[in-house]
C-alpha cells in the first residue's frame, strides 16, 4: 500500500466513522413535517385508481379523498346523506327520477372545467367497462344498453338519474350517490389516454383524474404514496397540504415508527400493541365501527354443511365473549346478524348477537343432524392477523365435541379463488358493504337469485356457499320496495333473526377501523364509510 492510498483509506474510514457517530447522535424523536400527514399503512392491495374497478378498502379510502362523489355521508352520522358535488337534488313523485343540481364553476386539477356532462360520461363509463363496480349500478336496473338514456346531463350543472323501479331514495343516494361510481372523471384526458377503447382504464392504473380535495402525486407500488392538495378544488382547501403514506407491512414496525415519532398515524397495529399504547402520553387511539363483517362461511354443497343444524351447531362453538374480550378487543365487536351496527334496519347490538359458547348444545345439534360422533372438516383462512387465533380457538372447542377441524392458511388471493370457485368446505373471510342499509348485506350475504353452478354469481357470497332460500329471497325483494320505513325495518328485523339460525354463514365480528395516532393530529374525522383527510389538522 502506498502512503497516499493509506491516507485515502484513512479518510474513508474517518468519514465512515463520522457518519456512524453522527447517526448515533441523531435525536431520538424525529418530527414529521408540519403541513403533512404521515401514515404507515399496508398498501399492498392497491392495484389501480380507476373508480370503476377499485374494490378494496385501502384504495377506496384514498379515492374518496381524491374523487368527490355526487353526495356524501354525513361525517357524524353515516346513515344521513349530505351534498358534495351536487349541492341539492329533487325527487319525482314516483321516486323514479332524481335530478341533481351540481356546484357551479368546478374544475379538474389543472383548471379545465368540470361539468355534469363529464359526470354523466364517468357514470356511464362504469357500466360500459363492466368491472366489479358496474354491479353497483346494474343492480338498480342500469344496463349497457340503457345507461346512456338513464344517466343524462341536461345542462352543465344538472344530472338526471332515471330508475326502473321505485327504490327507496335514501338507498339510491347511499348506494350510488355516495359511491365511487359517481366520481367526476376528466373525460378529455382519459379519452386522450385511452388504449383500445378502455376509457382510460390503463391510465388510471397509476393516476387519478378527478375532482377532489387531493390529487395523487406519486405512487410507488409496495413503497409509498403521496396525495397533494388540489389547488383547483371548488370546496375548502385541506388544512394539511400533503398526505404521505408509507407502505409498512409489519404491525410491529408500524408501532416502532409511531412511538419514535417518525409517523403521525399507524393504520395496522396489532390489538395487543393497541392495548399497550392506549393511554400512553403523546398518543391516542381512534376507532369507529366499519361496515365490515368477519365471518365463517359453509359450503352448502358439502354433505355435512348442507345440514342446517350442523351450521347452527358451529355457531355455538364460537367463543364470542372470550374472543371479543381478548383477541378481538381492539379489532371488533361480536356480531351475528348480517346487518352491521349503524345500518338502517339493523338489530341492536344485543339482539344482533344472541349466541354464546355452548358445547352441550352444539353436540346435541350435530347429533340431531346425524353426526353423534362428530366429523372432520377443513377451515380455510387467509392472512388477516386475527384469522389464525379465532380459527384455533374454534378448532379447540370443536375438538371437545368430536369435531376435528383442520386449519389451512393460505395467501389471500388463493383463498378468494378457492371460495369463488366453491372449492371449499368452510372458510373464514371478511366482507364489507358500501351501504349503511340492511339491504346492502342482505342482497349479498343472503339473497341468491340463481344457485346453478353455471350462473357463476361469484361476487355474491350466498352463491359461493351454494345457499338459496326462496322465502328469504322474496322477503328481501319485498323489503327493498317497501315505501313505509317502519314496515321495512320490521321485515329486516325478522329476516336477521331467521338467518342467524339458518343462514349459510356464521357472522362472527363487526370490525373496527382503528388506528394509533400522535396527539399532534387534530380533528381526525371519520365514520364507518369514509375518512375525511381534508378536515384533519396539526
Amino acid at each position, binding site marked *: 500500500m502506498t502512503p497516499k492510498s493509506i491516507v485515502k483509506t484513512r479518510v474513508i474510514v474517518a468519514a465512515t466513522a463520522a457518519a456512524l457517530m453522527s447517526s448515533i447522535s441523531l435525536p431520538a424523536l424525529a418530527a414529521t413535517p408540519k403541513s403533512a400527514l404521515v401514515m404507515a399503512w399496508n398498501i399492498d392491495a392497491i392495484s389501480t385508481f380507476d373508480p370503476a374497478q377499485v374494490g378494496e378498502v385501502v384504495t377506496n379510502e384514498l379515492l374518496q379523498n381524491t374523487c368527490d362523489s355526487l353526495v356524501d355521508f354525513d361525517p357524524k352520522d353515516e346513515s344521513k346523506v349530505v351534498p358534495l358535488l351536487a349541492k341539492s337534488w329533487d325527487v319525482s313523485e314516483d321516486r323514479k327520477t332524481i335530478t341533481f343540481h351540481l356546484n357551479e364553476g368546478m374544475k379538474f386539477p389543472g383548471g379545465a372545467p368540470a361539468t355534469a356532462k363529464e359526470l354523466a360520461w364517468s357514470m356511464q363509463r362504469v357500466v360500459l367497462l363492466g368491472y366489479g363496480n358496474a354491479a353497483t349500478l346494474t343492480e338498480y336496473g342500469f344496463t349497457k344498453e340503457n345507461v346512456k338514456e338513464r344517466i343524462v346531463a341536461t345542462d352543465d350543472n344538472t344530472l338526471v338519474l332515471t330508475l326502473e323501479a321505485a327504490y327507496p331514495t335514501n338507498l339510491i343516494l347511499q348506494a350510488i350517490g355516495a359511491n365511487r361510481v359517481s366520481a367526476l372523471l376528466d373525460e378529455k384526458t382519459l379519452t386522450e389516454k385511452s388504449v383500445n377503447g378502455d376509457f382510460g382504464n390503463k391510465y388510471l392504473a397509476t393516476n387519478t383524474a378527478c375532482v377532489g380535495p387531493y390529487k395523487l402525486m406519486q405512487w410507488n407500488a409496495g413503497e409509498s404514496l403521496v396525495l397533494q392538495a388540489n389547488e383547483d378544488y371548488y370546496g375548502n382547501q385541506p388544512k394539511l397540504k400533503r398526505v404521505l403514506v408509507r407502505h409498512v407491512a409489519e404491525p410491529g414496525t408500524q408501532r416502532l415508527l409511531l412511538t419514535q415519532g417518525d409517523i403521525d398515524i399507524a393504520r395496522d397495529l396489532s390489538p*395487543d*400493541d393497541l392495548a399497550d399504547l392506549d393511554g400512553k402520553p403523546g398518543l391516542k387511539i381512534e376507532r369507529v365501527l366499519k361496515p365490515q363483517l368477519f365471518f365463517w362461511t359453509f359450503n352448502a354443497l358439502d354433505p355435512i354443511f348442507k345440514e342446517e343444524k350442523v351450521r347452527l351447531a358451529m355457531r355455538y362453538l364460537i367463543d364470542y365473549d372470550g374472543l371479543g374480550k381478548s*383477541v378481538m378487543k381492539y379489532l371488533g365487536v361480536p356480531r351475528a346478524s348480517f346487518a352491521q351496527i349503524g345500518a338502517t334496519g339493523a338489530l341492536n347490538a344485543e339482539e344482533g348477537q344472541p349466541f354464546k359458547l355452548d358445547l352441550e348444545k352444539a353436540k346435541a345439534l350435530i347429533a340431531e343432524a346425524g353426526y353423534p360422533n362428530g366429523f372432520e372438516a377443513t377451515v380455510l383462512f387467509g392472512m388477516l392477523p386475527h384469522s389464525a387465533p379465532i380459527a384455533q380457538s374454534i378448532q379447540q372447542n370443536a375438538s371437545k365435541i368430536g369435531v376435528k377441524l383442520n386449519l389451512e392458511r393460505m395467501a389471500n388471493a388463493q383463498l378468494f379463488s378457492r371460495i369463488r370457485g366453491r372449492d371449499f368446505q368452510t372458510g373464514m373471510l371478511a366482507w364489507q358493504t358500501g351501504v349503511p342499509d340492511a339491504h346492502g348485506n342482505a342482497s349479498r350475504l343472503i339473497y341468491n337469485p340463481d344457485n346453478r353452478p353455471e350462473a357463476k354469481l361469484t361476487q355474491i357470497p350466498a352463491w359461493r356457499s351454494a345457499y338459496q332460500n326462496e322465502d328469504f329471497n322474496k322477503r328481501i325483494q319485498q323489503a327493498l320496495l317497501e315505501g313505509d320505513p317502519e314496515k321495512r325495518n320490521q321485515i329486516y328485523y325478522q329476516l336477521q333473526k331467521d338467518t342467524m339460525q339458518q343462514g349459510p354463514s356464521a357472522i362472527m365480528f363487526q370490525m373496527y377501523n382503528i388506528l394509533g395516532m400522535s396527539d399532534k393530529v387534530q380533528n381526525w374525522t371519520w365514520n364507518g364509510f369514509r375518512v375525511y383527510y381534508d378536515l384533519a389538522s396539526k
Partner: protein
Amino acid sequence: MTDKALISASPPRSGYSAWLRAPVPSSPFHARMQQLWLQWRQLRSNASALFGLIVIVIILVAALFAPVLATHDIFEQNLAARLLAPSGQHWLGTDELGRDVYSRLLFGARITLYIALLTTVIVAPIGLIVGTTAGYLGGWVDTVLMRIVDVFLAFPNLILALAFVAALGPGIENAIIAISLASWPPIARLARAETLTIRKSDYIAAMRLQGASSLRIIFGHIMPMCIPSVVVRVTLNMAAIILTAAGLGFLGLGAQPPSPEWGTMLSSGREFVMTSWWIAAIPGCAILLTSLAFNLLGDGLRDVLDPRHG
C-alpha cells in the same frame, strides 16, 4: 489436532478397548470399527463439535420425551391467561391464546427435527445419485444434469421453497417436499466433484477393465467414497433446512396452526415483540441454538471425515 487423540490415548485395556486398539486389524469389519473409534476419539477431543453434539442430543431427548417433560397440554387454550410472562406456573410464559410456551417449545422440537431429518433422508440419496452419475458418465448426461442443478441453484433456497409451497399448499409435508426440491442441488454438485477425482483413480480403472458395469461401479465403489463428505455437507445442511423451514413458518406458509413449529411460533410472536418479547425471543433462540449445534457438529465432522476441506 488430528494426532492429539492418538498421543493422549490411555494405556491399553482389555476387551473391546484392546480390540479397538489392536495394531493390526484382523478383518475388514475390525478395521472399519477401529477407524470409527479413532474418528470418535478425534471428534470427542474437539470441544465445539462435542458441544454441538450434546446440544443435539439434548434436543433429541426433549423431542422424544416431550409428553413426559411438558407441563401443559399444548393445545389447551385459556383466553384469560394469555401473554403471561415466564413464571413458576408457566416456565416460559404463555402465548396469545394462553397456551404454555415451554410445552409448545418441546413439541416444536419434534417438528423441527422431523423436517430436518426427513428432508435429509430425501435429499442425500437424490443428490448422491445425480452427482455421481453425472460425474462418472460425463458427456451430455453430465451437461444436462448439471444444467438442471444450475437452474435450481440459481434461485435462493427460500424463494424456491416458497414457490413450491405456494403451488402445493401449506403444511409440514409440503414444506418438506419444497425444501427438498430446493436443497438437493448442492449435494449433487459436491458428489459430482468428488466423483471426478475418484473416477481417475487406478482402482476404478481396474474395475472397468474387469468389465464391471457403470451401475455397479457407481453404486458399489464411487458412492461409498463420496459418503463422508456428503455426511459433513448434510449435517451443515440441516442448519440451513431448519432456517428455511422457520422462514416459511414466519411467512405463514409452513406448518399450520395449532402446530407448535418454531418458525410459526416466532411468526405469531412478532406481533407481541414490544409487549411480550419472550413469545418471539424464545423460539428464535431455539432455532438459533439448534442450527448452531448442527453447524458445530458438521464442522467437527469435517475435520474428522473430510480433512481435505479443513
